[in-house]
């Protein structure tokens, strides 16, 4: 859902979600997809250099989260947002995702 300003945010009330819950979900998903041990999914791990994340995996991750939290994200806007707000470590990614889910961030 988007309004005339072209930004995307959630309809309905902002969600209250614990970072720890998001962290567990993201780490479990990535460990599964990357076929790595969950112990390697440390907050300090570098997304590209250490974990080998690529753009398609990001998309897959957001597909998963959209399903989980009943959100809709325009992938192009997400991509633009990601370029302007790069994250380097897993911890930073989890922080960002948590804020998106809570509705604290506008993606445009």
């Amino acid at each position: 859902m988007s309004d005339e300003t072209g930004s995307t945010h959630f309809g309905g009330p902002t969600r209250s979600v614990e970072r720890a819950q998001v962290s567990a979900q993201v780490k479990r998903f990535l460990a599964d997809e990357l076929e790595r041990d969950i112990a390697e999914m440390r907050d300090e791990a570098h997304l590209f250099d250490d974990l080998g994340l690529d753009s398609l995996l990001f998309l897959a991750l957001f597909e998963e989260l959209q399903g989980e939290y009943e959100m809709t994200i325009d992938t192009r806007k997400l991509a633009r947002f990601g370029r302007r707000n790069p994250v380097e470590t897993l911890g930073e990614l989890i922080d960002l995702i948590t804020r998106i889910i809570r509705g604290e961030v506008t993606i445009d």
Partner: protein
Amino acid sequence: MDDRVVISGIGVISPFGVGREAFWAGLADARRAVSSMAGLEALPEAYRYGGQLSDFRPEDIIGTKGLKYLNDATRLLLCTAELARRDARLEIAPDAAEDVGVVVASSFSNVGDCVGFYESLLSPAERTNPLRFPNLFINIAGGNLAIRLGIRGLNTTVTNGATSSLDALQYGLTALRCARARVLLVGGLEVLSPALVEGFWRAGMLGDTMAPRPFDRRRRGLILAEGCGVLVLERADAVRDRGAPVYGEVAGYGSVPVETGDEAVAAGEAIAEAMRRALAAAGIRIDEVDWVAAGAGSSPSGDRGEAMALRRLFAAEPHRLRTSAIKSMIGEAGAASGMLQVIACLLAAEHDRVPPTVNCEEEDPACLVPAHVRDRSVPHTIRTAVVNSFDCDRAASLVVRRSDALLQ
């Protein structure tokens, strides 16, 4: 400086099974590897046949890790390349990774993935996984092979119809001679899917004879197949440095377009000219050819064209010549066929035996082939072989020479 291009490793996974030994055993024993295919209920029963892989478990060869989103074609290529790599005792060191390259011949190996992806896109209930997106590209297998083995040199996928494998080998030969790489993994790769077979059926190209019958008067069209062959190609001087054994040499290549007009006549002229050019490039005389690995695959006009070409070129009936079509046993594997035929030549030379054409009990009088070996494989010394690939657009030929022939 020895710039001949030699083959130092062979990997093959085919309807005969996994590996070189299984492939050769199938050829030598004249097995029929075409079987009934599942998932083709839309077709009349007589068309539901193909040369399919059996007993192929990628995890047996390359383990389970990292395979999750790789399509069938990629898994097949990775496994076959691994067999070839082991055969050549090739280790790819990081500092030499840019000298190693990949060339893959493939045309319809991902049709099933494309159809599946679009079906998922069009289905409202299903969420399409973006990780399946790369499988829409025919070069996905070649790309993943390089990623997996750490290969950082040239990477090309050749999609040229029937001549793809021979074109890929020629491409590799040229690249090695120009020092664009020191070692190449060159593969021919095809995977069957129900959508693909149905497509061929709708185009009227499939035959309902349930078995491929090259040169037989009952032939009515193709019977498709899947499989993968990978060769490790190097320059002769590089192989010597590595101390690896050599199977043979890719010695000459010719490729000619098929003109319009009578299909059989046009194909025949193109095949004859392609063979002449390949022999000339290799410096081989007509009477030195020990085996023609024919490209005939049960096409009503194409087989006749090839027979005409062979009768014309070998009119003097040289005593060394033998001819047969291995598609009679495994089917028409599209872009991979040429590679499977080349591997058959190398193994036949090693074992001093020519595989036969099977299923050709009633030779078409218009398709008589000189020195035709039928039904059973026969002992023969093979020093030089010629592989033919052709369709209605193009004909190509490749000359393969056995390794100790290089000593003569």
